[in-house]
């Protein structure tokens, strides 16, 4: 008995320690930034500020920006940093509440009714007539619509998580308008209403840290925006991008890093269908390392262009003026 008590106390103590630790980790923007750096996520001041505000104001963050700038990564890294689990809900057209919030375990319900058929007979044996049986049945309550038979989906799971978590609602712009409205309740009050059970809300001080990402394929409704802090992550400046490449591809030499980032920055100035994002820069850096190249030149770039550009017409556009672009990049590095 005593052991149980001590174990419980220990657990509680550990929880408190974790909470204090996280408080410490999110003490100020600089601390967050350096912690992210130690996890190989190089970020700007704004990004760190957003995490700081999200934690202290208990508000969700809506992250927008071009694809491949590390929106999803931010949520994952935050979870890593705080030692919390990251629950991810990938949005797509047609996503509805049975996939996002909860679903009844229909099979289990059916199985139980089959198995319990005989028990049911015994229970109802004393009852005479239909009305009495129904009355007796009703006194058992909604057994088949209780938490036992509830299959929690990401949103509900995030609320029920014992010691907080990071909830990532990815690509919210891909979902339907109806789903957006469905999110409003959890975003503003950290609670969800399930008709059969009632309202489930997050424990105080254990509210999940929520990130939503959007690629801007369509305008997010004002109602949703109003409930969130808004963070826009643009393509990084050359300086920051170099740091990112350095952190992600440690083997790269300084010179190559400079040249490659400078070339990518040049490309972003051009009129392309899809400009290369950070993830492409990193892929390219890895490619060049693999090819044992120390500097870039027009020929090398031409051969590896398909790593950074994903459309044939873009590749053709760039190939046309490759020499001058490389020249400019080498000059500006």
């Amino acid at each position, binding site marked *: 008995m005593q052991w149980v008590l001590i174990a419980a106390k220990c657990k509680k103590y550990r929880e408190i320690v974790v909470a204090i630790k996280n408080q410490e980790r999110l003490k100020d923007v600089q601390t967050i930034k350096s912690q992210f750096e130690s996890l190989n996520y190089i970020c700007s001041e704004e990004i760190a*500020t957003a995490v700081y505000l999200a934690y202290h104001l208990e*508000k969700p963050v809506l992250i*927008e920006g071009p694809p491949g700038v590390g929106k999803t990564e931010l949520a994952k890294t935050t979870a890593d940093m705080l030692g919390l689990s990251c629950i991810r809900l990938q949005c797509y057209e047609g996503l509805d509440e049975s996939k996002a919030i909860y679903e009844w375990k*229909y099979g289990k319900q*059916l199985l139980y009714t089959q198995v319990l058929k005989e028990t049911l007979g015994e229970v109802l044996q004393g009852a005479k007539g239909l009305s009495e049986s129904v009355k007796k049945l009703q006194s058992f309550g909604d057994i088949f619509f209780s938490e036992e038979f509830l299959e929690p989906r990401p949103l509900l799971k995030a609320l029920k998580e014992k010691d907080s978590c990071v909830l990532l609602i990815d690509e919210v712009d891909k979902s339907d308008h109806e789903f957006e409205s469905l999110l409003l309740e959890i975003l503003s009050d950290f609670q969800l209403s399930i008709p059969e059970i009632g309202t489930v809300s997050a424990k105080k001080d254990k509210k999940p840290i929520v990130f939503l990402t959007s690629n801007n394929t369509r305008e997010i409704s004002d109602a949703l*925006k*109003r409930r969130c*802090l*808004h*963070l826009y992550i643009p393509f990084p400046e050359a300086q920051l991008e170099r740091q990112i490449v350095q952190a992600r591809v440690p083997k790269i030499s300084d010179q190559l890093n400079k040249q490659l980032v400078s070339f990518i920055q040049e490309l972003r100035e051009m009129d392309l269908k899809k400009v290369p994002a950070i993830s492409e820069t990193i892929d390219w850096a890895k490619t060049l390392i693999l090819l044992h190249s120390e500097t870039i030149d027009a020929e090398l770039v031409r051969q590896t262009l398909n790593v950074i550009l994903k459309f044939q017409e873009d590749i053709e556009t760039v190939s046309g003026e490759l020499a001058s672009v490389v020249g400019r990049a080498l000059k500006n590095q």
Partner: protein
Amino acid sequence: MSEIKSTVVDFVKVLRNADIKVSPAETLDAMDTMHLVGLKNRAFLKTSLSMALSKTPEEKEAFFQCFENFFSFKDSETKDETETGDDFSSEEYSNEKISEPSRGRGGNGGQKSRDSEELDETVGESSLQPTSRLGKLLLLGSRSEVMIEMIEAGRTVKVNQIIVFTQKGLYTRKIMDEMGLKGLQDEVKELKNGGSADGRNLARKLEKSKETLREQVRDYVEKQFLLHADETGKELREELLKKVKLSNLEKRNFKDVQEIVIKMAKKLVSIHSKRRKVFKRGQLDIRKTLRKNMQFDGMLFDLKWKSKKVDRPKVICICDVSGSVSNYSRFLLMFLYSLAEVIPKVRSFAFSSDLGEVTALFEKNSLEDAMAKTMRDYGNGSTDYGQMLEDFKSSVLKDVNGRTTIIILGDARNNYGNPKSEILREMYERAQRVIWLNPESRSSWAAGDAEMPKYSPSCHQTEVCNSLTHLERVVSNLLKYSR
């Protein structure tokens, strides 16, 4: 803390002026943010507030500008302060901070600008001290103290309610009065009349600093005007431009109008981009229902109904680009192409006598260029609606089906030629809707060579359309009917 509140509210007002949508809930968020972040670090506050208050990249840009304007005095004093390392100067903050140097004034006040120090010395030499409140402030206070006093006065006279630039003088005067101009003037008069050399000297000094102050106040009012009134004035102008007849617009207004059109189009997009599913209750979709209920052992729990998804309208737009109507065509096309998000399929044709398709022109070029090219290629020649309809029949009519909306914009003045309204009738029968927009008022639709009476029976809708408001209504209806 109540000062934080009023600052946030003022700031939000400025943001709304700059076209950033800020709801009361977001204002509350901003206050929480301010409490959490504090006022010590300006850059930190800026990013934090930008996250709470501005929600699109465009809004963010506007926000940063507003922030810079609102939380700074355009004054050398502030620059001095920023250089000394403390880079924050909201109204409130300077309030707290400035109290220090003024307390320690006896020991050579730290942050005085050069000319006030100079004044200080000379005043120190003479035994005379100014007696009026404003006089004391001007000669003995630091410039930031003067600044604070000025802002306080500005608040009392409600300078943030300034609307038109002619009010600048009035508010300058009001602020000066509030700061105690009268006392100062009386003192100066007295000193001048007093006759002592010291007195005259001091009077001169006071006069001089009064002028400097007037300059400062004028600057301040100017800035407040830009902050608060500029946009209100703009709104007024926009309202006006929306109602003015498009043919009366001058070239210099085009840029403004284009902005307005884009804004209106954006509003329409956000209203109509919701693709609501219209359920036709009563028609069971048996295939779907069976498939869905397979998981329930074939028991029909979950009924599926036949649903109808909303289609985006297919628009064919025929514009008269002859001299008199070209302006209208210009803005109609501008409207339609700004709506690409909700009406992706617009085909446009231009004519004065011969009809030509200009869709590609508008998709590839900027609006200005496309318009100019269209005018060049199709703008000359006398209008011939009969020829236009003939051309339409021979080349485009086969593409018209029950989902097509045809918009014709023109005055229907056919130079007494053959109207060929039977072709329009054919279009009427094939298309979902035929809408005729006529820039002339209804009373002149039958006058002279106008053929409206012959055309209008073959249109689902005829509208007078000669201002942006009309255009907006037409386009909005177009979107509504298509569902």
